[in-house]
Structures are given as structure tokens and as C-alpha cells.
């Protein structure tokens, strides 16, 4: 993808990348990708709870990419369809870093920055409360989203969500989200312990 910024590609190369996909994110892709991701994660033998946290983050990340990719207007790049994205995860020390990248408009960028900034400032209890309130309100966007995806990613991770927007044109950005799920091993295996 020629519009994925160099620093993102480098970041992916730097991390011990276990799983990565670049292409259309649709319903068929999500099912297959989840199966593959689960298989890769299983081979890493993380704590069961943390494995589930990673998979839930992936599920929500891919769901968001699918729903919001549908809402993005025609891409300025004729080679790049609107539902094009990138998803993957890698291992860094005792954490799995989950990456998602997709296109976003200026309007979406503004909403995302506000929303993520707010979520990152909330405590565990406040996040839970927000999740319950949003769930109870029950609204769905025209694309079918419930407004809960980012909240869930923040809760599953327990860490601030990291965002990066790289402009592609006046109104289109590549929106990259990094979610950290740490303490995936109760004892860090020797194979990933840094050599002194």
C-alpha cells in the first residue's frame, strides 16, 4: 500500500510480527483472519485471559475497519478501495501489540481524536460505567455499529490507545491504531527475554 507511511512499515518490521494482513476487510475476511490469528496466538501460548483480550481487540479492530471503511467516500487513490486496511499483531517484550490501519476522513479524524483522548483519560471503573451506559442506550449507526468498539478495545487492553493519522490528501488520512495487551505471560519465556 503506497500510502502506508514509512514509519508504520518500519514499526511493523521492528516488532516481532506474528500476524499481518493487508487488503480488503469484509465479512468473509474477518472470519478467516480470526481463525488464523487464533491459531498464531495459540502457538505463542499466552495466558488464556490475555489471549482472549487480544482476540477481542482484533475482533473490534476489524469490525471498526469494516464499518467505517464503508462510510469513507471515494478514495483519492484509484488503486486503494475504500474498505482497504491493514491489521496485525506482534510481540514486544511481554506484550502483544495489535495494529490496525484504515482510511478516514477529516470529520472522522476529529471525532476519533476526541473520543480516544476521552477514553484514554478514564479509569477502569469509569470505562465500565461508560460501556454499560452506551450499551443500555442501544442505538446503532446506519452501518450497524453500536459505539462500543473503541470502549471495548480500551477495556480489553487496559492501556491507552495509541493513534496516528497520516494525510493522504486534503480530506483523507490513514488512521493507525495501536493497542497494547501486556502481561501476556506470567513468566516471560526465555526465547523472548532480551539478551544482555
Amino acid at each position, binding site marked *: 500500500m503506497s500510502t502506508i507511511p514509512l514509519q508504520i512499515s518500519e514499526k511493523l518490521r521492528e516488532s516481532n510480527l506474528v500476524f499481518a494482513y493487508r487488503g480488503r476487510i469484509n465479512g468473509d475476511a474477518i472470519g478467516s483472519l480470526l481463525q488464523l490469528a487464533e491459531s498464531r496466538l495459540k502457538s505463542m501460548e499466552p495466558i488464556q485471559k490475555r489471549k482472549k483480550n487480544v482476540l477481542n481487540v482484533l475482533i473490534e479492530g476489524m469490525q471498526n475497519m469494516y464499518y467505517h471503511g464503508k462510510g469513507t467516500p471515494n478514495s483519492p487513490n484509484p488503486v486503494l478501495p475504500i474498505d482497504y486496511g491493514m491489521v496485525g499483531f506482534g510481540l514486544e517484550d511481554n506484550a502483544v501489540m495489535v495494529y490496525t490501519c484504515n482510511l478516514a476522513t477529516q470529520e472522522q479524524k476529529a471525532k476519533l481524536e476526541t473520543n480516544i483522548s476521552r477514553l484514554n483519560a478514564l479509569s477502569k471503573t469509569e470505562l465500565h460505567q461508560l460501556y454499560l451506559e452506551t450499551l443500555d442506550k*442501544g442505538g446503532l449507526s446506519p452501518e450497524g455499529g453500536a459505539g462500543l*468498539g473503541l470502549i471495548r478495545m480500551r477495556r480489553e487492553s487496559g492501556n491507552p490507545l495509541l493513534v496516528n493519522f497520516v494525510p493522504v490528501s486534503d480530506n483523507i488520512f490513514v488512521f493507525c491504531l495501536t493497542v497494547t495487551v501486556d502481561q501476556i505471560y506470567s513468566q516471560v519465556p526465555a526465547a523472548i527475554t532480551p539478551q544482555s
Partner: protein
Amino acid sequence: MEKIVLLPTPTTPKVVFDAETGLLEISGKSLPENSIDFFQPLHTWLDSYTADPNEVTNLVFKLEYFNTSSTSHFLKIIKKVEKLFDMGKNAGVLWYYDHEDEDMKEAGEDFKMLVKLPVEIIGTDFIGS
């Protein structure tokens, strides 16, 4: 009323809604590409069922994964069954979770907090493939 039987797929759950027995079960993975299209027929069925329900209704969840779009529909389904409880019918939710899946247990507890309907959270040995 015609029974609903939907076979599971990699992204949609198995669904069995049986008006004769009052057993309404949703199991497997719920990540539908279009959650509105998938769940609307279930909501419509439930609206008819609640007009003439069985004396006993058990809404059973045995899920492996679900996305938050599904969560919203699950709550809507639970609230429809809650109407039966409010009418004095014997109605409740049985939320099964794999013993190793704390997240699924917590999801059931979240629903329990949001409704008055009895929600039983049941740990089991194994759910899913």
C-alpha cells in the same frame, strides 16, 4: 409459530428459537457482517412470540466470541424476553461461559446489571471448537 433454526457459520451463531418449548438459544461465534440484517428476523420473531408465548421461556446463550455490534442486539433480545417476566410469565436468561473465559462471564454479568429479568451465569467446561 414457525421455529427458527440457523446453522452456525464462521461469523454467525447457531440460533434455535422454538415457540413450542419456549427455548431460545444462541450459540457459537457472533461476528455478522451486517448485524442489522442478521438480527432483524430474530427481533421480528420475538415480537410475535411475546404476543403469545409459552408459559416458560428460557433464553440461552453459549457464546465463544461476539463483537460489540452483536452485544447491542443481544440486549435488545434480552429486553424483549424481560417483557414476559414483567407480565408474570416464567422467563429468564441462562448465560453459559467457559470456565477459562472470564471475559464471557463478565459479559453475562453486564447484562444482568442492565435488566430485572433473572440472569443465571453458569460456568461450564468447554464451549466452542
